[in-house]
């Protein structure tokens, strides 16, 4: 069976989507990254092989903040940023979509699409209030499982107004409202509204939000946030079936396109899950910048390198080598 892989390694979760020729999702995996991207990528590959032992991968795309790493480990055909991947995924699943709201673990994005093409986007810059990590933290503080957090918001009769400009102040304001005796459901619903306000103020500046509006990313699982968006924008909010793995879905489509253009895939095969891949960091003393150079190694072989400002280390990426043949060894601290 021919299939395509999309991998999205983010701050909080690692997602993998397996699609067929017609972009139908065969398998969607969502696991926590837990600060170990290499381990979680290998784990995802193992899960695919277990469910589809006869699969024949024809193209791979990688996205997310660890897209370079994921790309190197799997041998991806396309390595694309999250915004492009999410835009491609949304316009494939919801034809005619004009606005994409995406909230992930640590960042949020707003993508404006016109006639199937992204025309404008914004990404949170100074504040991470309202992203998954903050909601997680608040749920934990209130002793609520994150899955029930949104449902509780739906039971609110009168959402309390929470100051959501800053995550820390939002928390102090919530505590203050709790101490004053407001109902938990009303506070949780108020928090959702505050976060939506924060999102629209930070990202929506000067952008025309037209329907259909798609809401995706891990936070879209929260019905409280969905309702708050719907009220704030005064329109229906569409949450696609695979809202939690849209980045990976987009990556799979882009990987398929790129492999088609190249006339074949660069996929390393599922043996990649057994590779002894590790990251080694060293400090370069070539100039006072003292960049931390990360080398991705497979045993003795160096697969890729990045982290330098001048480009002399990452330029070596085009020439695979072993650590024996280090041309710039004199600059390294621990050489």
């Amino acid at each position, binding site marked *: 069976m021919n299939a395509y892989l999309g991998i999205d390694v983010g701050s909080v979760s690692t997602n993998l989507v397996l699609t067929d020729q017609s972009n139908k999702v065969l398998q969607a995996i969502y696991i926590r990254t837990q600060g170990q991207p290499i381990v979680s990528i290998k784990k995802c590959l193992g899960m695919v092989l277990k469910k589809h032992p006869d699969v024949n991968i024809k193209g791979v795309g990688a996205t997310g903040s660890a897209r370079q790493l994921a790309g190197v480990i799997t041998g991806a055909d396309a390595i694309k940023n999250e915004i492009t991947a999410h835009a491609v995924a949304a316009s494939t699943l919801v034809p005619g979509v004009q606005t994409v709201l995406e909230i992930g673990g640590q960042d949020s994005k707003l993508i404006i699409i016109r006639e199937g093409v992204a*025309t404008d986007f914004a990404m949170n810059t100074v504040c991470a209030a309202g992203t998954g990590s903050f909601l997680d933290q608040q749920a934990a503080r209130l002793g609520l499982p994150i899955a029930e957090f949104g449902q509780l918001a739906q039971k609110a009769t009168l959402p309390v107004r929470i100051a959501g400009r800053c995550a820390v102040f939002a928390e102090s304001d919530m505590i203050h409202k709790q101490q004053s005796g407001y109902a938990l459901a009303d506070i949780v619903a108020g928090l959702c509204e505050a976060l939506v306000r924060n999102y629209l103020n930070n990202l929506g500046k000067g952008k025309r939000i037209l329907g259909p509006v798609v809401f995706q990313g891990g936070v879209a699982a929260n019905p409280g946030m969905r309702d708050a968006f719907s009220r704030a924008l005064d329109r229906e909010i569409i949450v696609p079936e695979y809202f939690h793995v849209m980045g990976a879905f987009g990556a799979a489509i882009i990987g398929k396109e790129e492999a088609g253009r190249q006339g074949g895939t660069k996929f390393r095969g599922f043996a990649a899950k057994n590779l002894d891949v590790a990251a080694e960091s060293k400090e370069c003393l070539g100039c006072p910048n003292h960049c931390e150079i990360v080398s991705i190694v497979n045993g003795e072989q160096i697969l890729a390198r990045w982290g330098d*400002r001048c480009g002399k280390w990452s330029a070596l990426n085009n020439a695979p080598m072993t650590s024996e043949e280090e041309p710039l060894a004199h600059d390294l601290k621990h050489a």
Partner: protein
Amino acid sequence: MKVTFPHMGHLSIVGKGLFDQLGVEVVVPPPITKKTLKLGIEHAQEFSCLPLKIILGNFIEAAELGADTIVTSGGVGPCRFGYYAQVHREILQDLGYHYEIIVVEPPDTHFSELIQKISYLSNGKSLFQVARALRMGWAKARAIDVIEQKVQQVRPREVRTGTADDVFQWSLKKIDAENEIKKIWEIQRKTLHELDGVPKDMEKTVLKIAVIGEIYTILEPFVTFDIEKHLGRLGVEVSRSIYLSEWINDHLFMGLMRVRSTKEAAQMASPYLRHFVGGHGRETVGSAVRYAREGYHGAIQLAPLTCMPEIVAQTILPVVSAEEEMPVMTIYFDEQSGEAGLVTRLEAFIEMLYRKNDFGKRRVQSERLFRN
């Protein structure tokens, strides 16, 4: 007297050329590194903008090399930078550095003062010698800009990443060491020829993006994580709204030389922005208009966080972007900026422009850029 001055892109080569001709001993601050930034952050107020902090770091590092006199610029209008020389003076004094500070106010508003200060610095050199020094500074500034504009065109097309930059670095060293104007022109000619010879992929579709915004941020690559090199690697030909030689010509030579002028940019800001708003706010808006009409695919506004003139410009740019049909993205920088976030935004912006544009017509144009 050992004179030092702030870094700003390749300003140090120009400044050193000028002061050498005047017979003034110069201490060029060490190149800006994380250490410079760290010194600046440690001793400056948290809320001041990034240029103040990095320049403070330059002065501290230069003092360690024996500099005792600072030549820095002042400014007029609502931009805080006009006040920074005084802030630097206070901080350096508190830290125990005994600097004499000479503040050069914008020459087009205080020209006689400039002459006075130059003659003080040069210890009473003749006007002829001063003029020769200015010509030397100009020759170096212009050569660097002409070469860099070519580098900006070669970067996205070169077969091996970094070739054009190697040539550029080599020419900068040559220009820095040279003290004869004719030889500088020769280096310029040679380097341009060499850049023509760099192996290029002329079939590649290349986007044209303008970098607009606050002068320090767009001229100093350390602040922006070398954004122009990132763009080059992503297949983008870059043009900048302000080049150092243009600024020198506008403000020092009253526009006497025939190079592009930021005054045109200021005029083109109308009707979107009809007032001076401090710094280069009006030029940023005008440059966006100019580049859009020149057919550029997009523009990126760069500014230090909290930069008031650029915030004014930013609020106007969405209208310019819609009316002139050119996407514009704004990126602010401060010491908290991360390279990964920057690269993700650049990739997304460029990807968006690629998917949007039809390149059929533009390819013909770009083939005429190079002689071979």
